[in-house]
């Protein structure tokens, strides 16, 4: 597996972490009604979207490099 392929796996794991963190923060917001938790949730979803956009850019930029 090349660095390109591992990077794709890493970005996918990071996106899942961001979404998981957003879910965790939103759960806290529902439980404690702290606005800070809501900001964390929104920021995490934004980070997940940002990583997905970056992932697309990365795959386009390195389209000539092998996954092996």
């Amino acid at each position: 597996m090349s660095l390109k392929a591992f990077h794709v796996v890493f970005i996918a794991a990071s996106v899942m972490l961001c979404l998981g963190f957003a879910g965790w923060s939103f759960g806290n917001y529902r439980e404690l009604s702290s606005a800070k938790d809501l900001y964390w949730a929104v920021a995490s979803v934004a980070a997940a979207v940002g990583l997905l956009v970056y992932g697309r850019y990365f795959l386009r930029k390195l389209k000539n490099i092998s996954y092996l």
Partner: protein
Amino acid sequence: MEIPYTYKPRPDTGLYNAKVGIWLFLASEIMLFGALFSSYILLRVQAPMGQWPTVAGAWPTGLLNIPIGTFNTAVLITSSVTVVLAWAALKMNNFKAFRRYMVVTLVCAFGFLGIKSYEYNEKFTHYELRLKSGEAYTGHIEVNGKHAGFWDFGSIYNLARLEKDQVAEIKFTADPPKPKPGEKHAEGAAHTHEVKTIKREDIAKLDAFILRNHTFFGIYFVITALHGLHVLGGALVLGYFAFPGASMWKRNPEQFANRIEVAGLFWHFVDLVWIFLFPVVYLL
């Protein structure tokens, strides 16, 4: 004698030798961190139910600084992006961009370690206090009018040390109570930090948030310190390739790009460990 397959793929594996080597090494690393993650989970599920420190052996939650941990996660994700862009820059024959991305990666690596050392210091100066009356608290202490300094191991106290130093009493600032589920959180409300004077003879246990205090701190420091050592090792290798080792680019650019790829694979592994470590240790 020339070392074979440093940049040409070996016919039987289809890969250059260093790539096979790094994946074998990473397989052993997965076993190492896998064993530690399993230990963490087993220790946690076997801990008694209840809220620590009220229940002595219960698993402490909410002790780690989540904003700082989140920031450090973002720092490591950024460093993985820049290390792969550095490798891509070499593939596109752009050495200047390679060096720029490597410098950003190094700043992130040492930034992560700096932030982690601040977080460790927060733990070394934080205490669990149990009184003979049965009450238990977490908070900060002041002994003989002094607070602990940064990474000041000499000022870590326990009950035995208080007795040895003949300290008659300490000042203790307890942490504010955690909001209970369903309890509305008052934004901006000032937490009361009441300073109590505690006599030594009333203390049943006093210990900082260090390895010996609780299995949680034992496994937390072992995993995060081992991860930190990997970050340091990776940063030293990347630093070598960014500066003194970069002269290889002129002699053998293909082999140099492969070295960066191998270092980048290790770096990604270290960052991926953190991606799993952060939710397990900080959030759950």
